[in-house]
């Protein structure tokens, strides 16, 4: 169950500058737990005090925003690609 996670620039200090890391997780929530185990500190950057994804963090599974899926319960399967991206302004 290998899922690729694309790490945004501001978080790469935590992942030893790795841009793409692989996790073995059943859901987005599990993936965040696994990332935290490997890269301590990353969880509090992604989730707020209540455990919800921070409001300026957007998480995508295969280009779909998880808010259109099942948020942190969104299931992951082999070959899925997760992107973590800061919200940006209009145009």
């Amino acid at each position, binding site marked *: 169950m290998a899922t690729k996670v*694309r790490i*945004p*620039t*501001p*978080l790469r*200090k935590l992942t030893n500058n790795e841009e793409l890391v692989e996790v073995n997780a059943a859901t987005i929530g599990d993936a965040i737990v696994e990332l935290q185990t490997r890269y301590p500190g990353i969880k509090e*950057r992604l989730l707020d005090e209540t455990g919800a994804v*921070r*409001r*300026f*963090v*957007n998480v*995508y599974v295969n*280009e779909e*925003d998880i*808010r*259109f899926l099942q948020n942190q319960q969104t299931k992951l399967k082999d070959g899925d690609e997760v*992107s973590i*991206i*800061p*919200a*940006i*302004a*209009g*145009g």
Partner: protein
Amino acid sequence: MKALKCRECGREYPLTASHVCEFDFGPLEVVYDYERIKRSISRAVILSRNNSMWRYRELLPVAEEPTVGRQVGFTPLVKADRLAKALGIREVWIKNDTVNYPTLSFKDRVVSVALSRARELGFTTVACASTGNLANSVAANAASAGLKAYVFIPADLEQGKIVNSLIYGANVIGIRGHYDEVNRLCAEIAGKYGWAFVNVNMRPYYAEGSKSMGFEIIEQLGWKIPRHTVVCMASGSLLTKIQKSYQEFMKLGLASETEYKIHGAQATGCAPIATAQKAGLDFFKPVKPNTIAKSLAIGTPADGFYALKVMKETGGSADDVSDDEIREAIKLLAETEGIFAETAGGVTVGVAKKLIASGKIPAKDSVVLCITGNGLKTLDAVNGHAGSPREIKPSLREFEGLLATENQSTANA
């Protein structure tokens, strides 16, 4: 400029090309030294300068004199009496950015700041993710400044906006997806290439350019802050910067303290912020856009939280209008004031009409409508809805016959 500061947690950063807080991804904003600015700016100083947005340069985030877009801004503020009568309100003013220089939308304001700052930081390639107007402006201003430009747009944009970017020699990349997807891709590209992405890593500077629209409104009203302002919302950034401009002019003593309300306008086919405001929420739910107002079609508005906060703090309201209402409003503005706005302008006028009808903007008050882009860019949206010319032979008899038929049908109607 003193620093960049996270709007969420307050951490400060140096004045580089950087837009998110490393800690919580909150947006970074430029911090100014208002005490110092207060000593160098005054109404007299502003009045002594050229008629462009740069007459307020102390409040715009560049370190030196601007080098890109020095003629941008100072668009007309039009007293719209015929529109006011049609809307049933005492007074309406149109802030008319349909004639902004050089690309006929308010985006020239933000781009002139972003590119001037990009040059100061040593960039030679500039880029943007755009729903069209920004692409036009980046392409044109980069051309005049001799910068290389990459613009990323949804592939299904209006033809006018595509040609309007290509003509300047910019690299135009059409993405098969909607703006939010273009945006996501650009965030990834921006992280990888050393380019100045005007609305990604240059965003803190870029967004400040919108304040100039508010400064001009105040000055053109005789240094008065309008009681009501209606602003269209895509990401919500313009609305928050209009408020910031009002606050800054009060803080610096350029306008007297006064109560004002800022109202937000969206298209029903993409109304995450308006929907949240109407439901009394301080957060929004992202949507998938489906509207003719493509320049406002942002389903995940980055400044949505702050736009909601501004409306709440000022007592403003939000509403949304359907595609048909947008077309009707475009026609109303054109027929009453001779101003041809793009779809976003139709949204602003249409929502103003609703807010006046419901009393949220009282009929005894005065309102400023921010019209942000030119109708010639979105002809597709109104083509076939504005009637068509009646053709006749070059013969006086045919013309008189046509007039007679028309008078007949008017009489019968």
